């Protein structure tokens, strides 16, 4: 064994991430992020950057730029969570974590929104994601060239690789050595798995399918002031322990320490533009029922694949009558979800799948195109660990109700569940628009998402579903329950090298407005069959690096006001040394 390997083994889990002290800035005795020293900027002070949305994209961008001295304000529509007070170990009681404002879902294969894929509040959807943090494969960035479908990205895997590595230290990610895509190892060792995962993995092995533990953004061992996971199984309901990674605990404490303001409960309704210069000047938002305007030198929208297009489409002006940065009619197009059918298998022994984190084992063996399967691109296999309500939906999805449903549910402890993430292709007619005649509680037109599958999508989902049925059969399952669903959201404002077929360039800058950026999953031209969280963070991490290199195209002499109010004063104060 080499010295280098020995050293790495010895230090495993002990390496502190560079330039991010978030885990050490958290309080040992409470879970809430300390905000007593948070900066407060006045609305009239033109900050360097206002970010709309405090999720994976916005949170990471804020931390990176605050570290580099930028004056950053993050406006978040939802609350600033206190995990001790706001979150519960309960499925139905976690309703507040989701985006529950009105939205319309259409198309021939409509997507369930809300709890399924839409977050709300500081930390965004990563507050209730399962915790899977896989990287994309190098092939994901060139699927048009390789497989003749979808779209090539204007950047490559190797542009993101250093950011993946850095983020895996920051979250931190725990898992086995990863042989797929660009092979790599993880900073934390794999978590223990429950009995169901062992049984499913044995079944997969019989079929020559390799399933590995992880990769999950859940500390294995204490990490700074974040404690070890306690395996209570409520990852999707918000981690009360602070063991699971989300920007709330992985990036925002450090952003706050470096002068960023996270302003919660602020619903941004418009990005304002100066029609003569063609540059954005700030954003309009509603806080406590009062409309306010935050001035900014640049705006980064990070509201995810539905709210980002909605905000742009609602920000009409003389120069942009069809929505901001939408004169090429691309905003909202190519929104994507992953096909996520689930199969539950029944075993003689008790599995009690509610224990341990729902994300346990995973295989990316079917990730790439295999022409023998009869469709382009592929899928990954992951465990799901549904709690009672989710499992009841699964039983009903198979077609049982009444006494049969009750009987299956009494059998809950004997079941284990595998899920699929099928790469569905980007289609221009799958689109987010705004419904002109339907408005939310603020009178703002709501988003409508239309989604329909193509033939390749249907073949992919059918093949993937059969694969997990085969795994359970090989594992000795006595009965199977199958249900269809979708997971995740990406696309809608994709990046590209052709201004006619994309919304932003490779630096996330909108083609039509020089100081407007998009920093969330909506920029993804394709989605692979990986969970998107880590890649959204990596994109923002890279964007921060690019912005720091180029600045924002702002005035040559930048205002550098001294920041006031790093104290505990009551009200915001005008800060403008201009």
């Amino acid at each position: 064994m080499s010295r280098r390997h020995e050293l790495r083994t010895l230090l495993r889990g002990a390496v502190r991430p560079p330039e991010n002290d978030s885990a050490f800035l958290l309080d040992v005795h409470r879970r809430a992020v300390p905000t007593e020293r948070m900066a407060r900027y006045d609305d009239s002070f033109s900050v360097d950057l206002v970010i709309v949305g405090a999720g994976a994209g916005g949170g990471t961008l804020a931390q990176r730029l605050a570290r580099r001295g930028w004056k950053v304000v993050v406006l978040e529509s939802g609350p600033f969570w206190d995990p001790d007070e706001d979150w519960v170990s309960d499925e139905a009681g976690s309703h507040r974590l989701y985006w529950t404002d009105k939205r319309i879902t259409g198309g021939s294969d409509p997507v369930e929104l809300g709890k399924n894929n839409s977050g709300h509040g500081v930390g965004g959807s990563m507050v209730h994601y399962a915790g899977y943090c896989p990287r994309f494969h190098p092939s994901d960035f060139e699927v048009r060239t390789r497989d003749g479908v979808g779209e090539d990205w204007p950047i490559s895997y190797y542009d993101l690789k250093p950011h993946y590595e850095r983020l895996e230290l920051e979250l931190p990610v725990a898992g086995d050595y990863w042989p797929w895509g660009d092979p790599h190892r993880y900073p934390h060792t794999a978590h223990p798995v429950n009995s169901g995962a062992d049984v499913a993995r044995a079944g997969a092995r019989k079929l020559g399918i390799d399933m590995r533990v992880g990769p999950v953004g859940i500390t294995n061992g204490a990490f700074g002031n974040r404690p070890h996971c306690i395996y209570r199984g409520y990852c999707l309901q918000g981690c009360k322990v602070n063991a699971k990674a989300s920007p709330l605990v992985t990036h925002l404490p450090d952003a706050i320490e470096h002068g960023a303001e996270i302003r919660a409960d602020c619903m941004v309704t418009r990005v304002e533009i100066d029609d003569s210069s063609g540059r954005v000047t700030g954003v309009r938002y509603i806080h406590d029922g009062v409309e306010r305007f935050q001035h900014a030198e640049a705006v980064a929208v990070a509201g995810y694949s539905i709210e980002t297009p909605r905000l742009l489409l609602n920000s009409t002006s003389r120069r942009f009558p069809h929505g901001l940065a939408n004169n090429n009619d691309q905003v909202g197009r190519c929104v994507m979800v992953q096909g996520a059918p689930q199969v539950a298998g029944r075993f003689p022994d008790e599995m009690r799948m509610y224990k341990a984190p729902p994300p346990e084992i995973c295989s990316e063996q079917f990730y790439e195109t295999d022409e023998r399967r009869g469709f382009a691109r592929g899928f990954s296999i992951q465990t799901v660990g549904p709690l009672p309500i989710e499992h009841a939906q699964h039983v009903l999805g198979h077609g049982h109700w009444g006494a049969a449903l009750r009987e299956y549910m009494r059998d809950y402890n004997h079941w284990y569940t595998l899920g699929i993430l099928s790469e569905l292709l980007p289609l221009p007619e799958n689109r987010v628009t705004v419904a002109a005649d339907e408005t939310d509680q603020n009178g703002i037109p709501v988003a409508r998402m239309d989604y329909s599958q193509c033939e390749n999508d249907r073949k992919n989902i059918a093949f993937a579903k059969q694969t997990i049925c085969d795994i359970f059969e090989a594992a000795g399952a006595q009965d199977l329950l199958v249900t269809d669903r979708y997971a995740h959201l990406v696309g809608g404002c994709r990046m590209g090298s052709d201004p006619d077929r994309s919304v932003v360039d490779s630096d996330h800058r909108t083609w039509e407005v020089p100081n407007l950026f998009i920093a969330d999953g909506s920029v993804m031209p394709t989605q692979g069959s990986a969970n998107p969280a880590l890649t959204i963070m990596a994109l923002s991490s890279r964007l921060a690096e690019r912005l720091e290199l180029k600045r924002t195209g702002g005035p040559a002499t930048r205002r550098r006001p001294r920041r006031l109010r790093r104290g505990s004063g009551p009200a915001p104060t005008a800060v403008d040394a201009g």
Partner: protein
Amino acid sequence: MAARDFRSAEHLPNLRPDREPASPEELPRQRNGVTPQMHGRYPDYNVLDEADHWDEVTRRLVLERVEKMPPIRFFTQPEAVTLGIFCDLVMAQDREPKIPVLNMVDAKLFAGELDGFRYADMPDDRETWRRLAVGLDAAARQHGAGDFAGAGHDIQMRVIDALAKGELHGEVWDEMPPSKTWKVVSRAILSSFYSHPWAWNEIGYGGPAYPRGYARFGIGQRESWEGAPAFERDPVEDTERRGVQGT
């Protein structure tokens, strides 16, 4: 009562010739705590015995579900009668004790607590429930009954079966797709029923585990406080241990 071995899966509807479950009356009666209709496979397990080990906010929330029955405020009295029967049939609650599913649904609709999306060809969830009540009556009339509440059990079951399969037609159902209606209302029913600790007792679910967590997840392992299935136990030893007198 015939002994049943739950290592085998013969009791599961998919594997039975008629695809119907056996009568739950063959299961043990609940001895500790409550399950809906008082049958279950973990007769001595009451998740509420563990409430002292839960964090305060979770405990408040879960106990309130058991202790406070929300009044019907959203539905009208006739709607509540029709939909109450409907919810009980969907969850096979044929006698007390029942989880008050309709009251829980009513509370959410009354508070405007919706799920964050609406199908393009469907009305608002609140309107969906009201039209469901009208549509159930319409479907029952097609079978010759006066309305859904007054129809016989067979007709009621046939109407729900057709709803679940998306096969209702006429009147309301020409304007509101039955398959999506079923998705909307079943989601609300299931999330009410399986959020109730009585249902957790019935299925042997360990429940909230913060801050103590779970530690034993090998095959057939459980925490010391988790419920044992009734059929794992020798009845003679069990009766002696619990000091129960033979009858």
